[in-house]
């Protein structure tokens, strides 16, 4: 108990330092923006205060259910479909040498096509509704997942695969206990790339031809010269992307716990 008097200062100070490190740069940036926008007032760069005002006004309203949630819903649907498709096809292609030889050049080609150019095409094929926007997201997200899964499955350690064969590991059990965990670091890398692509395509799909969604709203404000409101839409997208990336990191830390810890262990011995 004797140390109790001096102890709390330590953790408290450490927490304060941490907070400063995390928030320091963002606060400085906003401050810089503020000073610039006050010192040199232009129509197109409102002060952070005005953007914040517009933010609460615009987004804490029915827009949450009419624009934000549909956007997020389409993103998650498209992302999940792309994930399933990418991992499913990736496992099949990665496990078969013949399939790989046949499919790889084609896959590389499709990956090289910038997904936004598919928007007009998909609009023609699938119309202007939700299906189109989800398909746009799938068409962009699937490639990094697919190619990374192929790579991960192909690189399953030979000794590990032999061990699995000797102990009768086959079929779904082999997939679950050997192939997918072994490929999981690469699969997660693919999913991470796919997430940022997905957010970009969500917005592009909505900007093209749409009646709802965050991207649609931003374009609408821009055309109506509602500049602070437009900026607030950009902030919403930024926050959304940041939130998704935090959630992804948390999921990754759980799924790849063994991989990350092993990496640290090796680092310590090296």
């Amino acid at each position, binding site marked *: 108990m004797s140390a109790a008097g001096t102890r709390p200062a330590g953790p408290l100070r450490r927490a304060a330092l941490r907070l400063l490190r995390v928030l320091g740069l963002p606060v400085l940036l906003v401050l810089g923006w503020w000073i610039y926008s006050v010192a040199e007032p232009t129509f197109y760069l409102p002060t952070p205060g005005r953007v914040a005002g517009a933010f609460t006004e615009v987004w804490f309203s029915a827009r949450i259910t009419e624009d934000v949630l549909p956007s997020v819903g389409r993103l998650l649907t498209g992302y999940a479909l792309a994930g399933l498709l990418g991992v499913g096809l990736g496992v099949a292609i990665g496990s078969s040498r013949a399939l790989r030889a046949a499919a790889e050049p084609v896959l590389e080609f499709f990956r090289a096509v910038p997904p936004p150019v598919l928007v007009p095409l998909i609009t023609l094929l699938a119309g202007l509704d939700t299906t189109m926007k989800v398909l746009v997201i799938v068409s962009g997200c699937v490639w990094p997942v697919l190619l990374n899964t192929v790579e991960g499955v192909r690189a399953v350690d030979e000794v590990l695969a032999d061990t699995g064969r000797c*102990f*009768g590991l086959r079929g779904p*059990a082999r997939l679950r*206990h050997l192939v997918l965990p072994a490929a*999981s670091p690469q699969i997660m890398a693919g999913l991470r790339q796919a997430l940022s692509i997905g957010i970009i395509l969500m917005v592009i799909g909505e900007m093209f031809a749409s009646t709802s969604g965050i991207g649609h709203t931003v374009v609408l404000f821009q055309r109506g010269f509602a500049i602070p409101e437009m900026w607030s839409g950009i902030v919403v997208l930024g926050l959304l992307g940041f939130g998704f990336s935090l959630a992804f990191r948390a999921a990754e830390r759980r799924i790849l716990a063994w*991989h990350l810890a*092993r990496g640290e262990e090796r680092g310590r011995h090296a």
Partner: protein
Amino acid sequence: MLEITGLGKTYEGRGGVEALRKIDFRVDGGDLVCVVGPSGCGKTTLLKCVAGLLTPTAGEVRVAGRRVTGPPPGMAVVFQEYGRSLFPWMTVRKNVELPLREKKVPAPRRRELVEEALAAVGLADAAAAHPWQLSGGMQQRVAIARAIAYEPRVLLMDEPFAAVDAQTRAELEDLLLTLWRRLGVTTLLVTHDIDEAVYLGRRVIVLSSAPTVVQEDLAVDLPAARDQITTRSAPRFAELRAHVYAQIKQAKGRAAGDRTAGDRAAEESAPPRQVPSPAPRDLKRKTDGRTR
């Protein structure tokens, strides 16, 4: 229990590399047989053919009378590369348990087998750890525990102690003997270490250089109870070792003219033995021409 007849393996490719020419021997139920041969003689190829991981190009392997076409049930394998044969995303317990799950052993019995096996290799406390948190010797103990928990009829070991240091190696050798004596499991162990082959084996199969045939099938007439100190210093042990060594030297001399790239690669990848050994073993190592 294990019959190998006319076994040959030629790898396809430019011209084809004949690794095994004609291998014949059998292992009786409950026996412990060591296979030893010069570097690059196809020991691992032989073991993989027996395990059903490679398809031989001639002859056949039979386990308990049944011809091997794929990994046969009731056979467990311990590989040299413990770091690559344990599943890093599973705990030690899960690693040992997984094959039992696939074998459809009921859960209570599974728990029993896992606990017994881990206790038998002295790792009862490490069940919740991940393999990469353990030392090399402990990881290989996990692999051995996994093999014995499986209750195999035949245990195959591919240079199981080649990648651990000398002291750990001696411990693991004695562990293997203890387990073998207790379980009576038919064991085939491949090694490049002549001492180890003589120390562990009831019989030693000496292979020739590639293309490989059985050069000698030698019964080891040492007392059944073996001990690192007394057995290794027994005159009979020295005689047997010298005999096997002479056989291998002869096999090497015969093949010295036509060494292949495969031989050299195998020699270069031979793992180092880190702990200094006493004089007699040093002497032996200098003369037996292993590249370290």
